[in-house]
Each structure stands twice: as C-alpha cells, then as structure tokens.
C-alpha cells in the first residue's frame, strides 16, 4: 500500500500556509517538526477540560490530570520498550535530559577518568561532557568521523578501557543523517562496565527505538522533533543508574519529607522531576508518539528513505554540489555545499521560493570544522514531505545557484 502522504498532510494545518506567496515547503525537520491537528487539539482539550496541578490534589481535576499524566508516562515507556514505567523521566527536552545525567555524573567522574563522545555530536551532547571533564580534570576522548560520515569504529573500540566513566553518542547525526551502530558500541562498552547515553533527538521520529534491545543505560529525546509540542522531552534511564544518581534539581514533587536541616527525596521517577511538571506538553508528546505508532514507524522510515534516495539521485546531477554525509545507513537528512556559493545566500533564495532549509554549522561546530567547511545547507525530511516537493526543491536549487554564480 502506498504511504498516505496526502491524507497525512491534511493533519498539519501549517502545511497549507504560504511563504513569500509560495506554498510552504518545510525541509527543516531536523530543527523542529510541525504538529498535527491531533497534537494541537490535545493541548486545547487539556486546558479546556482537565487542567490542574498533578499528584498533590485530592480534587477531581487534579485526579484527571494525574491519571492522564501518569498514563502518558506509561504509554511512552511502552513505546520505547522500557522495562519499568518509572524509568521514564520527563524533562524539557534532549539538552535538559543530557545535562541532568552529566550533572549527576559529577559524583562518578574523577581526575584521570575518561569520557567518550564522537566528533559528530551536537553541542548539546558535547559541551556538557566537555565541561564535566574540564571541571573534574578528566579526559574527553573523541571518536573521529570518517570521510563518508560514519564513526571510526576501530578507533572507538581502542578507546574503551576501565578508565572510561561514560560513553555519550548520538543515535543519528543531525548534520550527516548517519545512523550510528549504537547497539554494537553499547555491547562493547558494557564489557568494560561503561554506561552509555544515546542522544536520540534525531532518531525518535524516524526509526524504531527500543531501549531494551539497544541495552543503552540512558536515552534522551525531545518532543518537538517528533511532531509533539515544544517544552517536553524524555530521559530514559535504567533504574539501577537512576537510583544510584543523586537528584538534579530540588523543589516540590521530588521530595518525600523536608526538614530544615535535611530532605528525604522521593522515589523514581519523581526524584528527578522537581517543580510543577509540564503536563500539557507531556500529553501532547504522548499524542504525537501515538500518532507515529498509528501510522507505523517502519512505514515512515521506508517512505522517508524513498524521499532521500530520490533527492540524492537528483542532486548528484547538479554541478558543483557536494553531499556531506553519504553513509549507507542514514536517514532523510541532506547536508551539502555548493562550490563558490555561500550557504547563507542559498538559504535566503530558497526561502524566497517558499523552501525552509537550515544553513550554518547546525550546532555541531567541531564536526563542520573537521570537514574543512564553514557550514552546510541542510534539507531534512519528515513524514509529510513529498516527491514533488523534493523535485521543486532541486529545481529551485538550480535556479538559485545560477543566480549566485
């Protein structure tokens, strides 16, 4: 059965808007995705019928909100196949999730220890670990990226040792689209008892995610990159680690008993959820993941792969274009540079033609610099993009390049 893209597009109100008088072609899904009506409606429904603070109340609305909120946790735990519901911690997003872990790991990292990341990490999975290493006089070891945009697995394997206290790797690169062999890396790291955090920001909306199959110790993602609202995200953590870690933020919800001179902290997951949680956006995130589940993430992956293949073959025909990131296993992210053309100029002209792409270093400055360039243009696809958008994009690209050269 063909992928029902036209029907799905109807779910996304923003897709029928115009930009500079042209129909919007939204190819900036790597930065954030658009939201289906179902998700927007869920927010409205919540605020119109259920809104309340959770957990602490004995009244009807508070009960409704609590049941919905904990139901969302339960659904999301199942969606990523967590062993226990309490292993799902709600955060503000990927950056917040990673900072939670890197801050709590201050207790576990000491002078002379090592932390492994890769050269393709987003700043959000790089700077927290770099700063942890700087403050603890630990060493940051960086797995190099090969010409085609894959990890140098040989070097990675050699880096493993009992000195390593954490390996933090992206599931999928936001610049290159590379799907990293994280399962293999995790298995290798576990031989040295190294915990592994996977930055799943670019994975959750594009490929199946099964934390138990991966056997990762932590997995982080953002709602807003998976068709859900902004302001919510998940930190999955194995309960053995979460129980071992000290709390991150302090305040309401995360405490059991407070005395002036000491505090008894709450159990998981509340221990890591200080303050009033963002109930509405968590429910929106649940709805978004449910939306993906209903379509079928396998089908989405297959469809986006078709878009990628088609776009890649068309772009290879355009003179002067160089694709950045050509791994065999990759998602529908097309980073490229054009000889003699500044990405910013190209982005500006594409925007005039209604096409939203991203230009710059994509918050992955070390990677971009290691490639010897000062930025790329990135088109990243989502489930609502179409073959004809791809063709319009390549035609517009040619036109823009002609103007600029």
């Amino acid at each position, binding site marked *: 059965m063909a992928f029902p893209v036209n029907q799905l597009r109807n779910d996304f109100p923003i897709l029928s808007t115009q930009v*500079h008088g042209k129909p919007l072609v939204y190819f900036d899904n790597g930065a954030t995705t658009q939201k289906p009506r179902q998700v927007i409606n869920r927010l409205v429904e919540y605020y119109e019928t259920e809104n309340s603070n959770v957990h602490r109340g004995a009244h009807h609305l508070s009960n409704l909100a609590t049941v919905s909120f904990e139901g969302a946790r339960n659904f999301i735990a199942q969606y990523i196949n967590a062993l226990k519901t309490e292993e799902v911690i709600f955060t503000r997003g990927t950056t917040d999730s990673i900072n939670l872990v890197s801050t709590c790991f201050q207790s576990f990292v000491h002078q002379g220890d090592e932390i492994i990341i890769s050269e393709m990490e987003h700043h959000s999975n790089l700077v927290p670990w770099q700063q942890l290493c700087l403050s603890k006089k630990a060493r940051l070891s960086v797995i190099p990226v090969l010409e085609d945009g894959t990890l140098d697995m040989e070097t990675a394997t050699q880096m493993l040792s009992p000195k390593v206290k954490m390996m933090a790797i992206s599931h999928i690169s936001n610049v290159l689209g590379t799907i990293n062999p994280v399962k293999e890396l995790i298995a290798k790291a576990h031989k040295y008892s190294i915990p592994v955090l996977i930055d799943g920001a670019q994975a959750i909306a594009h490929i199946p995610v099964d934390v138990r199959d991966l056997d990762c110790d932590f997995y982080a993602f953002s709602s807003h990159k998976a068709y859900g609202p902004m302001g919510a995200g998940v930190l999955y953590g194995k309960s053995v680690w979460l129980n071992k870690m000290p709390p991150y933020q302090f305040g309401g919800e995360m405490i059991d008993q407070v005395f002036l001179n000491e505090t008894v902290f709450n159990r998981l997951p509340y221990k890591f959820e200080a303050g009033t949680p963002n109930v509405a956006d968590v429910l929106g995130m649940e709805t978004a993941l449910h939306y993906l589940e209903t379509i079928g993430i396998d089908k989405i992956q297959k469809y986006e792969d078709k878009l990628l293949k088609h776009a890649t073959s068309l772009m290879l025909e355009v003179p002067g274009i160089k694709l950045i990131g050509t791994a065999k296993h990759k998602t529908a992210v097309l980073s490229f540079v054009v000889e003699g053309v*500044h990405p*910013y*100029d190209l982005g*500006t*002209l594409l*925007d*005039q*033609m209604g096409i939203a792409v991203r*230009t*710059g270093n994509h918050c992955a400055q070390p990677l971009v610099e290691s490639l010897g360039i000062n930025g790329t243009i990135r088109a990243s696809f989502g489930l609502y993009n179409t073959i004809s958008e791809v063709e319009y994009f390549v035609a517009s690209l040619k036109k823009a390049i002609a*103007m*600029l050269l």
Partner: protein
Amino acid sequence: MTINESAQGVVEEFWMFDDWMDKYAYLIELGKDLPVIDSQFKTNNHLISGCQSRVWLHAEEQEGQIVFTADSDAVITKGIVSLLIRILSNHTPQEILEADFSFLESIGLQEHLSPTRANGLASMIKQIQLYARAFQLKSNQL
C-alpha cells in the same frame, strides 16, 4: 549628490522590482560589482560581528570625505553593504552622522530581511557611524 538624493535613487531602483526575487537578483549584481577591498584590510580588525556571513569594512579619508570599501563571503550580504557604501561613501563625517536611515524602511529591507540579516545590517550601519565619528574627532583635534 547628497546622501538623501542617492538614498532616494536607491529606493526608486528598488521599487522598480515588484518581485523580491528580482530585488535579490539586483542585490546579487551589486554584490558581484562591489570593488574588492584591499586584502590587507580583510582582517579580524575589520570584521563586523552580528552577521551569519562575514563582512569586512574599511574606511579611509580622502580630502575630508570618507571612502568605504568592503567585502563579504556571502554575495547577498555584499550587495547590501555595497548599497550602503554607494549611498554613504564620499561624504563628510558630519554628513554621515546626520544621515537619515529611514530609506531602509522604504526599501522594506529591514522588514523583509531575517533577524540575523537585520542585525547584520544594523551592525554595518553602526560601524559606518563609528568610523564617521572617529574621523570627525580626529579632524576636530587638528
């Protein structure tokens, strides 16, 4: 020609194009035609911050008037700076400091540009005014 007159000329040129694609094409042509800055001035000293692309701006005094030269790694940015230079170069510091930049609004540039570019444009204007002030101070001290 006064600053106001050349600004008026630029505004009229821009109004000739209905379509922003054409206005951009025009900016690109301006960018390509910009006399290239002497490479000794393409240093961090002359770099303007606040632009997603890099812009170098240099100023020299010639017989009481300031002559600007500039470059950028992005051609549209080059077009924008070229447009500013066309209007403001070869004027006295006093004239530049008194210039009315509302012509940018008439062009619709600031409103149409992305905030990053608008910031960049604001930085360019600030830099031009700084040069003017510096030259004015210098000449007052003589």
